[in-house]
């Protein structure tokens, strides 16, 4: 990059990040001055007195108090937003960069800047699916979102969502648990990661995908920021899935964007008259959205079923092979989990074992990475079960190696097992 373009890029980010400058103001500045650099220089040269009014008449907008001061600060230290992102360990992409995703450039209102943590390459993926839904999710809605995320991960697709509590978080977590990549598009600056409970999830996403936003560091989330970021979610994805949405859910905005952008939209149907899915039902009735009827059908409808590097049957096969290495009581529990996330009660019913035995087996399975908790009393198959290479002991890190029955009496730590000997376990 030449000195000149690098200077323009810095000014571009500084102008876009200046409080009070939205996409419209930014465009007018560009038209007026020809470049962001020239715009900042012009403001720096402006007399302080009545600068807000001068600016307003130049731009043809109503005067906005404080705008001139904000721009003057940006002109005085244009490196500031780039520095803040670098301090967070992040990166910045602008339309001036070759790596700026064409999918975003094609938007009616492309983001002026993308701030990100993690891998900028993940934004280029063509196999990508948005999974969105309500914050106020039911347990079964979250389980479905997590299964969808896991299945998409197995099909080699990147899952895009919004890092909100509820459906979004479950979709991200399900994808990560299955060893997949996921992108979180957040509605605030990168230094304001949203729900405190999501800090860990956010750093896991940054390590296996990316966390991105069009908002500069220091921008707090507000009413308008979430709907706007939804257009980025649908634009990054080749298709969108709405898992659970009541009437007036933000997920419906993402769905509308997807339809406008001409991308396939799948909607999980629910029971008629159930307010938790009223938005989903309305989408199915009033738009060309297709119903999500199963995970295999989902892959077909999203045109993801073919070159799936490690999809369903083979992953399941290796998982079954891996099950051979578990003690019987654990195997029954792990097998139940292979059919998708479920409650402890459901596992107890299926496995036909005492609750205490199932609970102990689940604890062991969780410790060893065979199961992971989705919420109180809800469990899903863990990374070892869902990752395609789960079957080969060689690929499992030795620390998390599942106990082989032949090894159960060996002396090394981590090799103890929990076989169910006759007469073991309380009757109730």
């Amino acid at each position, binding site marked *: 990059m030449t000195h000149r373009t690098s200077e323009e890029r810095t000014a571009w980010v500084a102008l876009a990040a200046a409080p009070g400058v939205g996409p419209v103001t930014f465009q007018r500045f560009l038209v007026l001055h020809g470049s962001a650099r020239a715009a900042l220089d012009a403001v720096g040269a402006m007399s302080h007195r009545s600068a807000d009014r001068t600016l307003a008449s130049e731009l043809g907008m109503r005067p906005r108090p404080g705008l001139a001061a904000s721009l003057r600060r940006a002109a005085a230290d244009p490196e500031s937003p780039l520095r803040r992102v670098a301090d967070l360990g992040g990166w910045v992409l602008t339309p001036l960069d070759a790596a700026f995703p064409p999918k975003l450039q094609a938007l009616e209102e492309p983001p002026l800047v993308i701030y990100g943590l993690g891998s900028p390459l993940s934004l280029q993926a063509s196999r990508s699916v948005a999974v969105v839904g309500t914050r106020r999710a039911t347990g*079964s809605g979250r389980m479905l979102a997590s299964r969808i995320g896991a299945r998409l991960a197995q099909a080699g697709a990147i899952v895009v969502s919004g890092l909100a*509590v509820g459906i979004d978080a479950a979709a991200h977590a399900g994808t990560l648990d299955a060893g997949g990549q996921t992108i979180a598009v957040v509605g605030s600056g990168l230094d304001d990661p949203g*729900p405190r409970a999501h800090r860990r999830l956010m750093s896991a996403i940054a390590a296996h995908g990316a966390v991105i936003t069009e908002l500069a560091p220091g921008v707090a989330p507000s009413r308008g920021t979430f709907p706007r970021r939804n257009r980025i979610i649908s634009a990054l994805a080749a298709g969108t899935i709405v898992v659970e949405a009541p009437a007036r859910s933000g997920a419906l905005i993402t769905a509308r964007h997807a339809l406008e952008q001409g991308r396939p939209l799948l909607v999980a149907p629910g029971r008629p008259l159930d307010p938790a899915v009223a938005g989903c039902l309305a989408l199915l009735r009033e738009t060309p959205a297709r119903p999500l009827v199963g995970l295999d059908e989902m892959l077909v409808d999203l045109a993801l079923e073919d070159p799936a590097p490690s999809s369903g049957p083979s992953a399941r096969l290796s998982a079954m092979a891996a099950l051979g290495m578990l003690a019987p009581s654990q195997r029954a529990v792990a097998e139940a989990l292979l059919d998708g996330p479920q409650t402890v009660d459901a596992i107890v019913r299926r496995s036909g074992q005492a609750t*205490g035995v199932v*609970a102990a087996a689940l604890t062991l399975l969780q410790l060893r990475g065979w199961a992971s908790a989705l919420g109180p*009393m*809800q469990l899903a198959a863990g990374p070892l079960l869902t990752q395609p290479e789960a079957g080969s002991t060689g690929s499992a890190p030795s620390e998390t190696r599942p106990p082989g029955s032949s090894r159960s009496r060996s002396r090394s730590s981590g090799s103890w097992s929990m076989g169910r000997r006759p007469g073991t376990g*309380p009757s109730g």
Partner: protein
Amino acid sequence: MVGGGPQLRPGLVTLAHLGVLFLDELAEFDRDVLDALRQPLEDGSVEIVRAHGSVHYPARLQLVAAMNPCRCGWHGDVQRACRCRSGEAERYMRRVSGPLVDRIDLRVVMPRLEPGALVAPVAPEPSAVVAGRVAAAWRVEMERNGGRPNALLRGRQLQRACAMDRAARDALVEIARRLDLTARSVHRTMRVARTIADLRGRAAVSPEDILAAASLRDRSMEVPLAA
């Protein structure tokens, strides 16, 4: 709760000495009140300090507590959505401090029962049978521990009572490492495992007993849920 006032009156924890103190809606108690429970739960006595001196009251009690997962009560339910605002459920859980949760050995999540189960309950094990098993285990542990219940075992006494084979010890070490158990939690897990083994009528503590004890330390109260 712990006692006090001008007459240095004993509080609920002392009135519950050698008995059960049941606190319903635990998260609705004031934080100060809850944190005052930590000393009696650890030491079995409570010290009340006033300007003119201090007194010790006995407070060896069995704490039983119940709480909702959040204010609206639906957090984590499979069918219904929680109506609390974002982050509120986590805040509600955190009202009970970590150190207090650490001192609660048996934590059980109670999901909503399906209506069918309420109308036609499966025949549960009769209470008399359970009571018999508890009494037998009690006799065994008092005899082995020289008149002390497992809950009061400390230090070397605990190590001696919890005779573990290699596999059980490995299990405990792995669980402690993976779950980031505090030293107190490790000892508490050992006591619960010892009791489970006693209830199962076995002399040695097995890996199953350790796992069963660990599974009763449900961690959803400690780890804020992602979703």
